[in-house]
């Protein structure tokens, strides 16, 4: 028998499959399609202290085996989250994790403090890698000094499970994983989107209102896998693999590369049931190959 449960920090997940922030709304969008509580965790939309309108339209461009987005953290802020969204998502019988964003360290800290008070949010994912905001975001996650500062400041005020989401737009992502570990993060998740661009050659203008945006989808999978592999070798905390996972085979690739859990992102747009199919598929893979738990195959490749 296969036991799919995994531990990430103080968190117990019934299976290693989560949804990636910004690709699964607040979960309710998927209620019609499957039982969202059957997932290991739901990571909801990127949240900021103040409400944000996000970037102007157009915010999306399709690319070969992928897409660019420039949503820019549109959300209604923590007050609205507390009063309107929190009560609704509390009903899910799984871990609901908030993706925490800010333009400066104080932002991150204030937001984290508010979320710490919400009993049914057992973990946060600290996003220091959003490429779609002018201030903060990726600027933190691509500089070792500021990355350390923000992680430290948030860790100081947050006692539950802290996941740090890393940016792939760096020379050496493992270095950022090590910093997160040194600062007491419980886990790192990677990758956020790769900074990309697309041009409408008829109109001779960028396809995104912000010129550049974040690339996601299968196109980025090889890069994401490499980064997970590099980071998993460098740290002892769990690594959560993200990037182009379209099915269980892709998820297994990430686990073999060293991920203790995975997140399904863009795939949910194409097939809303993907995350649930990935749970089933991982179980089948383990069963078929004589393993008892995902832990048996984490990083388990012959080099």
């Amino acid at each position: 028998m296969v036991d799919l449960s995994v531990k990430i920090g103080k968190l117990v997940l019934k299976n290693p499959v989560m949804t990636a922030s910004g690709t699964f709304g607040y979960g309710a969008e998927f209620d019609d399609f499957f039982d969202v509580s059957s997932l290991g965790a739901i990571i909801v939309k990127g949240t900021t202290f103040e409400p944000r309108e996000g970037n102007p339209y157009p915010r999306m461009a399709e690319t070969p085996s992928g897409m660019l987005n420039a949503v820019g953290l549109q959300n209604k802020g923590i007050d609205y989250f507390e009063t309107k969204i929190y009560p609704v998502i509390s009903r899910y019988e799984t871990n609901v994790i908030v993706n925490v964003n800010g333009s400066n360290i104080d932002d991150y800290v204030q937001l984290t403090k508010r979320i710490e008070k919400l009993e049914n949010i057992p973990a946060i994912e600290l996003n220091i890698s959003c490429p779609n905001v002018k201030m903060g975001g990726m600027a933190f996650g691509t500089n070792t000094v500021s990355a350390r500062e923000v992680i430290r400041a948030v860790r100081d005020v947050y006692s539950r499970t802290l996941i740090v989401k890393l940016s792939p737009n760096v020379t050496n992502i493992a270095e950022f994983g090590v910093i997160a570990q040194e600062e007491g993060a419980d886990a790192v998740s990677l990758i956020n989107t790769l900074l990309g661009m697309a041009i409408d050659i008829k109109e001779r203008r960028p396809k995104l209102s912000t010129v550049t945006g974040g690339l996601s989808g299968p196109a980025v999978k090889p890069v994401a896998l490499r980064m997970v592999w590099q980071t998993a070798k460098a740290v002892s905390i769990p690594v959560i693999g993200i990037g182009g996972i379209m099915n269980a085979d892709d998820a297994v690739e990430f686990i073999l590369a060293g991920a203790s859990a995975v997140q399904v992102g863009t795939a949910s747009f194409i097939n809303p049931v993907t995350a649930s199919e990935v749970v089933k598929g991982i179980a089948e893979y383990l069963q078929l190959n004589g393993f008892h738990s995902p832990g048996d195959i984490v990083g388990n490749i012959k080099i």
Partner: protein
Amino acid sequence: MGKRVEDLIILANRQINQGFFLLEAKSLIGLPVILPGQFLQVRVDNAPQTFLRRPLSVHDVNYERDSVSLLVQVLGEGTRMLSGLKPGDTLNVIYPLGNSFTLPGKGERVMLAGGGCGMAPLLYLGRKARECGAEVSVALGFRNSSRILDFSEFRKIGEVFIATEDGTEGTRGFITDIPAFRESNWDRIYCCGPEPMMKSIAKAAGERDIFCEVSLENLMACGIGACLCCVVNTSEGHVCTCTEGPVFNIRTLLW
């Protein structure tokens, strides 16, 4: 109202003009309730360029045959693949999506204004408006007479006025130049088409204080409110076209 992912079966695919196709697709498990203005997210298989689904309006619904009709204009790779579908092929869709047009009251005089492929969501709306007892007229705009799409189904629900930009048929100019559009006092105008057309109709309606709803075709990734890519700027800020729309009252749009 449950959304679902389903493999529909193509019943028919007919070219109705160069680059325009009318698809009919059947649900084997029975259609859900579909409202006029709603759309489907259609998966285009087997093309690397079509990673995302394609949104298509519900053109018509036939509950007896459990089928929906789609009016497709070939623009790029996705619609080109769809135009090649044959009876018996499957079409994977997520549906029904989005809000819907506000139906008119009995006796109201409504105008459906569509440009080119913007006709798509108006036929089913027209039928429903007739069922409500409204008096339906239709104004269709095309570039020239050779681009006119078969509008015989629209004839069955009301009088049809045509405008062509070069005057080769009907009124020369745009829908807003059609005398019936300008003169009659419509209770409601429903509109779908290229953005400049919708804007000019919205302006005309606004000036005359006529209730007017437009159906937007913003670029979409998910179609179900999960990605926030499809936003339009409204008096309430950025809202998703796929869930709060695609149908918007022009008063809420910051046009």
